[in-house]
């Protein structure tokens, strides 16, 4: 364009080429903007790296098999996190069983069946949005009051912790599932309905299978949030000295985050190292769970 312009007449001289090929991407403002964007990512990742290095350096001395096999002790060099590991496993497994089916069912109702103009469904929509932002510790208070109402004396039991965590992550699972369902194109549903399938058959055989990767990713991320959560369990009295293996849903327990909190609060340096080592362990588990979620998303998610 510029060449044609210059051959046509010398009088028409644009100050800069009409089409530069970069479309203004290299203007100073645009470049500065890009640098700022890069910096914000760099700062975030810088903190992440610093955090990981800190806990690895602090915890390396205590990251031994003893952490997996021993019970807590008043001597940091003999203490381990075995009951906390088992306790976390029990609590998370119970939470998953309680909350995932419920969350998916609620999301399917809202996304596929609910009449959006019905007051009840509007209320539920608003309510889920609100619940997602309720502080986690409030769910602890809810479970505490519920158990008090049932006259449960010993509130430090797996099922109680799982109840609090289930209600905590229920809105997370509902929102993730709704998003996954929403990403399935309407044409899929219309095609199925046009072939004579009922609405539930359409949901069960077309919409839900297409949304499974999104739902699985959301559920795993929600569970990993529950695994790292300590506040509601703290309110339920999970900060106790557990010298046995938790072995059922009515068993007493402590969890990894609670154990870390406990050891961080002790004055002795040895316990801080134990807290760091346990943090490394917890982070390792979470990275595996996140990795799985990401793998599922990247491997199975359809792009319509």
């Amino acid at each position, binding site marked *: 364009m510029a060449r044609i312009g210059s051959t046509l007449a010398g009088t028409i001289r644009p100050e800069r080429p009409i089409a530069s090929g970069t*479309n203004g991407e290299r203007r100073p*403002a*645009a470049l500065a*903007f890009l640098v*700022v964007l890069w*910096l*914000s990512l760099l700062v*975030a990742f810088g*903190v992440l790296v610093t*955090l990981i290095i*800190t806990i690895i350096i*602090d915890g390396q001395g205590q990251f031994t098999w003893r952490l997996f096999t021993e019970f807590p002790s008043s001597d940091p060099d003999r203490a381990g996190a075995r009951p906390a590991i088992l306790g976390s496993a029990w609590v998370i497994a119970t939470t998953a069983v309680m909350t995932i089916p419920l*969350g998916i*069912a*609620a999301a399917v*109702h809202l996304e596929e*069946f609910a*009449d959006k103009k019905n007051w*009840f469904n509007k209320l*539920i929509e*608003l309510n889920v*949005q*609100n*619940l997602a*932002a*309720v*502080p*986690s*510790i*409030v769910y*602890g*208070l*809810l479970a*505490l009051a*519920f158990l*008090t109402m049932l006259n449960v004396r010993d509130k430090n039991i797996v099922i109680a912790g799982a109840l609090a965590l289930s209600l905590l992550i*229920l809105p997370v699972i*509902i929102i993730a599932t709704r998003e996954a*369902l929403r990403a399935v194109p309407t044409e899929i549903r219309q095609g199925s309905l046009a072939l004579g399938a*009922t*609405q*539930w058959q359409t949901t069960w055989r077309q919409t839900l299978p297409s949304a499974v990767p999104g739902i699985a990713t959301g559920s795993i*991320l929600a569970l*990993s949030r529950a695994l*790292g*959560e*300590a*506040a509601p369990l*703290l*309110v339920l*009295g999970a*900060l106790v000295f557990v010298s046995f293996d938790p072995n059922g849903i009515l068993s007493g327990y402590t969890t990894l*985050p609670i154990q*870390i*909190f406990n050891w*961080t609060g002790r004055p002795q340096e040895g316990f801080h190292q134990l807290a*760091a080592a346990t943090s490394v362990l917890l982070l390792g588990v*979470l*990275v595996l769970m*996140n990795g799985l979620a990401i793998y599922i998303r990247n491997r199975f998610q359809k792009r319509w």
Partner: protein
Amino acid sequence: MTTVASTGGPVASAPGRPAPSSPGSTPSNFVGKPRYGEFAIRIILRIAAGITVITTIGILIALLIPSLGFFAEVPVWDFLFGTRWAPRFADASFGVIPLVTATAWTTFLALIVAIPLGLGAAIFLAEYASPRLRKVLKPLLEILAGIPTVVYGYFALQFVQSTVLREWLQLETGAFSVLAAGLVMGVMIIPTIASISEDSMSAVPQAMRQGSAALGANRMQTTLRVVFPAALSGIVAAVVLGVSRAVGETMIVAIAAGNQANLVTNPLQAGQTMTGFIANAALGDSRVGSIEYDTLFAVGLLLFIITLAINFISIRFVRRFREIY
């Protein structure tokens, strides 16, 4: 997404379905046979959705009943505007303002960190990163979201407070500070803000970007003038969710902000937040029905009302600015 009128549910007078063999040969009246299973499934799904409402009602009841017991002994006015918080002292005082100042400080500091960094990351991921780069960066950012708050708490106390603030910067601060807790909390919230804003920007139709580019805008202009406004509802929702996470965050402040309820005027001070109080008070063995036990719920109620109010603001805002494609 319900685009076709409801077909399920039993229809009382529905005749048998016409023979499926030769479509077109028999006139169909388009009424299916009654499907009771389908109807039952709908009821089950509706109940599942209803449980969320029951949860909210449960929270309200659980918080209100002990709070009523509390406010029978402590006047609401003294609770809301009192400036001394000493529930376990002999001359007990229940003024919640010190807890509120600590919460306000940690939230404020967290937002100063999280809003610019979170939005910057979101814009980069949504508008600039190539699909390959995005596939690497997004999971990394989500790892930041997946770090347990108790680990952030350890980091805030052992590294940010004792190493950075005290050893490197030589600031006059004690073992705990609102500053360390707030800064680390901000990092914790970055992925919350980034992820939701990014989703909302990625949801803006490609045609709008192409239209903008066709008019000669570069990517910065397209981002700031087309994509950002179009995604504003999601971005506001992200920031507000960040605020309520900061207000409700417990473990970081319980570990790093300290346990004395001070009127916080300076971020280098230690202070106990509302959540920090609940976490610490729950550690002590408080008898059901005692004033200590009821205090937990009174503070919990205040916390709940604050986050609820923030949320309603966000929802109203989202509705007003929502653009539908």
